């Protein structure tokens, strides 16, 4: 791949970075990344990856833009209310950077479709808001040998880890979805919009560092932050021998749909 003059100018602040350079920028331009969920996390991920010149961005979301999304889902604008999120996001990506090829999947990930959707991508970003999807993405990526970034946010808090094949996975930390009622429901919980942006941009940086192959990814460690007091910490962990999907005696060998948590059922009715 040879960068043209416009690309050299557009990506000049990457190219002059010692750890990126022309070579790293070419890897970004050749990268294929799937973002599952174009909400609070997926929005900043998609914006930064588009600006960075990602070759192909896949977007998975079955929802339409709701007025209550605009407080944090910065890729969607007021006139987009009512439009499918993947189409709204695709328009913004095209406006930021016509170099990027966008593939949209106007659907939810489920056991039946996820393996087929992720198979053509180099890296997967979990930008979903529910545990059923988070565990499904983990299992599909572990079984399919795909690296992915987990992201979770709640109120003022965020957490993220990166999985690469052979290393610890999300289930090594969180064995199974929490039982109903153990975790606050979505409507009780709330989220400071900027916290979604903080976590999403960390996930975008993980994607870019994965593609250029520089630095230490959040592999075998979980980054947790509390933006109310602005404290960050990383918790190290190793592969869990008892992990149900990547452990010594895995009980999960095929994908199944988990029961949605109680908050998903409640919010589903609200449209």
């Amino acid at each position, binding site marked *: 791949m040879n960068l043209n003059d416009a690309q050299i100018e557009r990506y000049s602040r990457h190219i002059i970075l010692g750890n990126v350079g022309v070579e790293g920028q070419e890897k970004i331009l050749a990268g294929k990344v799937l973002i599952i969920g174009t909400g609070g996390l997926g929005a900043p991920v998609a914006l930064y990856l588009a600006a960075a010149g990602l070759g192909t961005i896949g977007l998975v979301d079955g929802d339409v833009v709701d007025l209550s999304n605009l407080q944090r889902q910065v890729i969607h604008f007021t006139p987009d209310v009512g439009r499918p999120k993947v189409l709204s996001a695709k328009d913004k990506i095209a406006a930021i950077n016509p170099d990027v090829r966008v593939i949209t999947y106007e659907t939810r990930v489920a056991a039946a479709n996820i393996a087929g959707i992720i198979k053509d991508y180099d890296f997967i970003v979990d930008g979903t808001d529910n545990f059923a999807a988070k565990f499904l993405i983990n299992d599909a990526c572990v079984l399919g040998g795909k690296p992915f970034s987990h992201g979770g946010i709640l109120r003022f808090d965020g957490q993220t880890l990166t999985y690469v094949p052979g290393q610890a996975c999300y289930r090594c930390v969180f064995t199974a979805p929490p039982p109903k009622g153990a975790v606050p429901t979505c409507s009780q919980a709330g989220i400071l919009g900027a916290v979604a942006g903080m976590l999403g941009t960390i996930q975008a940086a993980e994607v870019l560092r994965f593609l250029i192959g520089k630095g230490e990814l959040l592999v075998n460690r*979980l980054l947790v932050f509390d933006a109310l007091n602005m404290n960050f910490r990383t918790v190290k962990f190793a592969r869990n021998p008892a992990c149900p999907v990547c452990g010594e005696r895995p009980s999960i060998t095929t994908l199944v749909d988990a029961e949605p948590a109680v908050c998903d059922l409640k919010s589903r009715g609200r449209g």
Partner: protein
Amino acid sequence: MTLKVNGKVFTAAEAALTVAEVLQRSSVANPEMVAVQLNGEFVAKEKLAQTPVAQDDEVDFIYFMGGGAKRDI
């Protein structure tokens, strides 16, 4: 006894405590809400109440976090 809980100093008057008691005193209302490590090793939920902690042990607990968008994908 002095421990490190989530990177911070934690002191207790007792000489014997379990991981479950440490979580309780750290305002974890329900142990189902967290993943727990003792000195870098995960402790299964059903073992929290039987696992003792000792001087200078490090306990880390991490909350489940969903979030992102409004509905599931």
